């Protein structure tokens, strides 16, 4: 109780004076955090890990990364181990709520802040106790940006091969916009086929599926990919077909950019958030929670629409996107004055 009072007081002082005084909750401590990921491969995930790592290094935080390699049981175990090892904060990326809620509750009950990316847990307010954040890439907005790009390119009328991945939180959010906003508004858009091939290694399957559809129908005006792993397969299928069907998608990777630059007439645009910023913001939110400052229950990053027409002639990678889109490069979300003191 006394400790809590001191923390609260310290936080209050920090806020009132707007000084760079480091809150007592984090001051002089060697903080240890765990980043538990459902999987850790691919550009996107590596950039996420690197973002979290470099932000952690800034503040002298010891960050251990646990890659569950698609094994949810291992993921739950990783969270529980972090609780047992008395980590100061736990960052999570992806996973399925059903499999992890128990472990997350344990962490929260032990007073450990849990900052979750692309997942949410049905935890009551008392257990959450202001220490649970559910972050996303603003999937609703990414859906809207990418789908509106498609609507614009088709002048609101045409046959679309649509892709959804059901029962995965981020892709479900993107789909809600399509179903609830785009289709009822732009009634000229007709879905001629929906491809859903799950989350495990969808690229080759998506390629085969679209090849099938492109050889059996001649009236496709655009293809939509709710996730870039599908888009890569779709891209291959469209390029191989020799047709010029525009492709719109969500998420981006270096590989996606290379493809967009090779055939900008095919892969037109993709809505995305810089994954390294997600990692950075997760660390900041954890720090704020440890400092006893108020953190939001939900937070969405700011996505941008990467258009192949915007890309320069020379090859670019994701880090170059900052030059083209200022919002891509950095985010000052949840940066507090005391954090720069902590850096030193």
């Amino acid at each position, binding site marked *: 109780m006394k400790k809590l009072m001191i923390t609260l007081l310290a936080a209050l002082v920090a806020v009132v004076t707007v000084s760079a005084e480091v809150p007592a909750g984090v001051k002089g401590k060697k903080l240890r955090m765990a980043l538990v990921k459902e999987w850790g491969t*691919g550009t996107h995930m590596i950039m996420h890990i690197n973002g979290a790592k470099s932000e952690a290094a800034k503040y002298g935080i010891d960050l251990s990364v646990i890659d569950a390699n698609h094994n949810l049981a291992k993921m739950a175990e990783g969270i529980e181990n972090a609780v047992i090892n008395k980590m100061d904060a736990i960052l999570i990326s992806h996973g399925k709520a059903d499999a992890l809620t128990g472990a997350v509750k344990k962490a929260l009950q032990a007073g450990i802040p849990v900052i979750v990316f692309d997942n949410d847990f049905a935890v009551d307010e008392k257990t959450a106790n202001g220490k649970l954040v559910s972050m996303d890439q603003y999937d609703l907005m990414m859906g809207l940006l990418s789908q509106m790009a498609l609507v614009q390119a088709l002048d609101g009328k045409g046959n679309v091969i649509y892709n959804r991945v059901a029962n995965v939180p981020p892709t479900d959010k993107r789909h809600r916009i399509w179903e609830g906003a785009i289709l009822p508004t732009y009634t000229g858009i007709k879905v001629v*086929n929906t491809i859903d091939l*799950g989350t495990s290694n969808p690229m*080759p*399957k998506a390629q*085969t599926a679209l090849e099938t559809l492109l*050889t*059996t129908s001649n009236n496709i005006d655009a293809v939509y990919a709710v996730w870039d792993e599908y888009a890569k397969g779709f891209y291959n299928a469209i390029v191989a077909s020799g047709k010029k069907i525009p492709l719109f998608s969500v998420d981006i990777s*270096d590989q996606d950019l290379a493809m967009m630059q090779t055939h900008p007439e095919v892969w037109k645009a993709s809505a995305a958030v810089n994954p390294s910023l997600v990692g950075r913001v997760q660390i900041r939110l954890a720090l704020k929670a440890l400092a006893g400052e108020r953190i939001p229950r939900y937070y969405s990053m700011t996505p941008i629409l990467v258009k192949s027409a915007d890309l320069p002639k020379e090859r670019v990678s994701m880090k170059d996107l900052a030059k083209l889109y200022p919002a891509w490069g950095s985010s000052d979300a949840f940066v507090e004055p005391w954090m720069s003191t902590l850096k030193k």
Partner: protein
Amino acid sequence: MRQEERRLTTKKLDIFGFFYKYGTILVTIGALLYFSLTLDNFLNFNNVTNIFRSVSIVALIGLAITISLTIDGFDLSVGATAGFAAVIAAKFMVIWGYGVVPAVIAPLLVGVVIGLFNAFLIIKIGIQDMLATLSMMFLLTGISVTFQDGSAIYNFMPIPGGGIAEHTMSKAFLAIGQGKWLGIPIPVYVMLVVALLVHIFLNYTKYGRYLYMIGGNQEAAKLSGIKINRYKLIAYVMSGFLSALAGVVLAARLGSGEVDAGAPYLMDGVAAAFVGFSVLGTGKPNAFGTLLGALLMGILLNGLVMMSFPYYSQDIVKGIVLLLALGLTYYKMKHKG
């Protein structure tokens, strides 16, 4: 009365015998009929070649498993071998700038080495087939991800040291997966030629007969003077080689070396090989059956995609087909005598 009973049983058995022999083929024809009646363009030439192309990798992996099954073994490392081979091919071209020939030969050699290592674990160390190859599966998946630094290998990729990869996958290599000759995709030729060679090898050579003998009764084979270890080694080396070939086709088809891309092909390959058991009532692993098993799965998947079925319903259909095929095979085995 008694005579009549007997007649009835014979008749029943005949019906079963008929389904046992032709069940898989009938299901395939039934699926073809159903889809061609309900879907426009299903039987259009391009879609038929599409189906063949879509099963080429599964069929190659299935053939690799088939060979390991002939000696009553089981190679679980086939998918991982294919994934690793694909990454090797991609890295040879994109990062190291080799031409098409080394980019095909190197992964195939690695496949052979993996087969040798599997054989070593199983024959010399004495680990059970499934466990040895399961360990290899994990090992290879891990090595592959390390070898590619956790990221796919593709044209114009940024290099960890800075800059962009200077080399690209050669057109000749991509043709292995994407090209056509006389209107038929090249991977289809690869699949058909390999299936034919495996069929000849298993049925018309001394080696094939010995492999089946070892699988049928290892002790008997040993007593009749067959060098069991030598033939087991041959089986695993061939399995590794064919898996690597599947990986080369996979890389050429995707145009990149993806992370763990071979994994999903393991189970589909296993399914193709076991559906193959029931084809023409052979009741044993065989190349023609595996090819037909892969095609049956490909036809079902193709039709279901055209009908916009989501993936879990496709899995249900795959499961039912496999169960039916296995049911036929094992029921027959049980009631043989």
